């Protein structure tokens, strides 16, 4: 990976929209009044990845894996402990003040909970207008036009502009949130579990809308989710996170067809398949146990206590993320052979 970094750093600007290098976020959880013992939750622990313009990178992992923290770090909502977040060739960590505010406006976010992500005391119009007003993009009649256009784009009737968020269903609220995120014409949108709070039939409405918008506005997405089904539809490449680390990152096809990391295999196998005839044919791998606390991660490979294939080496030596096959990075001492995927229609 390091070598790859060096090669790529020459032409960062042309190839990647976003590049994350050695990103770390430790939360201080020292106890006691005088903080005798320093202890940290290593929410994100040294991760590297890149996002190409126009693509969708899915980030998947279970609660506590650091995926949302990663999103918040890129969004500059949290201060990183270490590492670089390079957006269009500029390290965001080296910017400050007005410059940072400008650059940051090109990255927007769509949130998980459509009920808490909209201020209950603001009308739809004001919610969508806020980014435009904040950055003095438009005012008066022009502001009004832009807001209404955004409402059209996400499929909200213009007549809803004077209403309050509580008058809408979850799917409609998520559309409001999407309109707000689109207002500043961002290049990158971080989607933090945007459909997981919605009903199934509504989820696909929103996913389809997002795919449409991506094409229309040439958007790049980082799509964060706790499960593979949600990211599968929309992602080009997928990164799997476990306990603050990226354990595998590759194209969607390769990940589903031939996962290399045992955790990815477990994640794939855990997803219920909506076809009762496959019930007994399915080769179920059930990962035992719970995710350990990120404050006190296991030695060596962090997955080893739950890994069905773990060996001595896994307990001692931490595996690095390496390009095992072309465009297929994995952090595992003993990557899986072929035949662990779940695709039935290839």
């Amino acid at each position, binding site marked *: 990976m390091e070598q790859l970094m060096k090669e790529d750093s020459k032409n960062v600007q042309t190839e990647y929209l976003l590049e994350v290098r050695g990103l770390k976020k430790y939360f201080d959880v020292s106890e006691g009044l005088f903080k005798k013992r320093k202890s940290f939750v290593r929410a994100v622990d040294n991760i590297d990845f890149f996002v190409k313009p126009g693509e969708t990178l899915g980030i998947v992992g279970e609660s506590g894996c650091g995926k949302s923290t990663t999103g918040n770090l890129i969004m500059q909502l949290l201060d990183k402990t270490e590492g670089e977040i390079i957006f269009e060739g500029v390290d965001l960590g080296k910017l400050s003040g007005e410059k940072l505010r400008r650059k940051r406006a090109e990255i927007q976010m769509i949130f998980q909970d459509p009920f808490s992500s909209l201020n209950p005391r603001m009308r739809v119009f004001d919610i969508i207008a806020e980014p435009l007003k904040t950055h003095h993009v438009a005012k008066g009649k022009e502001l009004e036009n832009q807001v209404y256009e955004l409402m059209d784009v996400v499929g909200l009737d213009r007549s809803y502009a004077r209403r309050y968020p509580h008058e809408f269903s979850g799917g409609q609220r998520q559309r409001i949130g999407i309109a707000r995120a689109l207002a500043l014409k961002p290049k990158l949108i971080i989607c933090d579990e945007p459909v997981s709070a919605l009903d199934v*039939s509504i989820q696909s409405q929103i996913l389809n809308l997002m795919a449409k918008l991506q094409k229309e506005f040439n958007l790049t997405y980082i799509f964060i989710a706790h499960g593979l089904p949600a990211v599968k539809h929309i992602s080009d490449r997928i990164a799997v996170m476990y306990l603050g680390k990226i354990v595998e990152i590759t194209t969607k096809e390769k990940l*589903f067809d031939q996962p290399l990391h045992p955790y990815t295999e477990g994640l794939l196998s855990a997803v*219920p398949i909506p076809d009762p005839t496959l019930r007994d044919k399915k080769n179920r791998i059930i990962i035992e146990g719970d995710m350990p606390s990120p404050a006190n991660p296991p030695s060596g490979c962090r997955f080893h206590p739950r890994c069905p294939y773990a060996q001595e080496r896994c307990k001692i030596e931490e595996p690095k993320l390496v390009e095992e096959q072309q465009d297929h990075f994995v952090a595992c001492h003993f990557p899986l052979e072929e035949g662990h995927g779940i695709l039935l229609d290839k």
Partner: protein
Amino acid sequence: MTTDTILEVKDLKTYFYTENGVIPSVDGVTFDIKKGETIAIVGESGSGKSVTSLSIMGLVGSPGKVAGGEILFEGKDITKISKREMRKLRGNEIAMIFQEPLTSLNPLFTVGNQISESIRLHQKASKEEAKKIAIEMLKKVGIPRAEKIYSSHPHLLSGGMRQRVMIAMALSCNPKLLIADEPTTALDVTIQAQILELMRNLSRENDTSIMLITHDLGVVAEMVDKVIVMYAGQVVEHTDVYTLFKDPKHPYTKGLLDSTPKIHELKEELQSIEGTVPPPGSIPVGCRFNTRCPYATEKCFSETPELTEVSPNHQVRCWLHEEGEVAI
């Protein structure tokens, strides 16, 4: 009624009497569960699936109330029995687990305390016996270091552990029916797989009937024998799991299936159902799905379809199938 039917719900109506009028959350639901059978009630938020389960448990709170129909548990109508009898039934014969296990456990008492209390309440066991049974149950649901967990407080446990504790508690009295309301929705997918596996095994070993309330058709496909699809308070389709997935008859069921992501297919096309579930206060005239149905005709906006049998053990509430089978 055959002897191996454990629960029979007939034309259940649970209404909420609010300031803004009567809201029919459950409006004429009929189904039965046999011994050892696992059934699923599927629907989105507002479909009435949770209220149905609460009605069976006798846990519908004011302003809601069972306004009509019968709930026969082993032949006895439990809508008519006293509160005391109902309490005895709950926990002993019918147990329930909920979506969010933290809120259903008392944070002030240890896990063991709560399990053994429920055992003592229902089984007349001594303190020591109850503790022994409780630890055994904890082991049975796959909790490592059961003795240690026994004396822990709920907030120290992970979500998956808490749900295991809830299941241990629910099963500690050998119920004949287990109602599981979205038992894995709040859990991570690898933990969900563990819990589902646990429920499968327990139902197989103890011949417990399970009524699973869920919105996840993947879980349904892996777990159950029979499916009831609910929409806006009514059953719209009712059949065995294989038929439902192979040959769904109601446009809503079809829509749900089409919008469910299929992890094992690369080239999936994600369809969706337009619009949203009508709020309980403003249910449309005619078929309740008419506002979202791509096949809706004039008739669907004026006349209400009945739940009718289109083939043996396959009931659908839709005008499309009025004159025999139609492919959708």
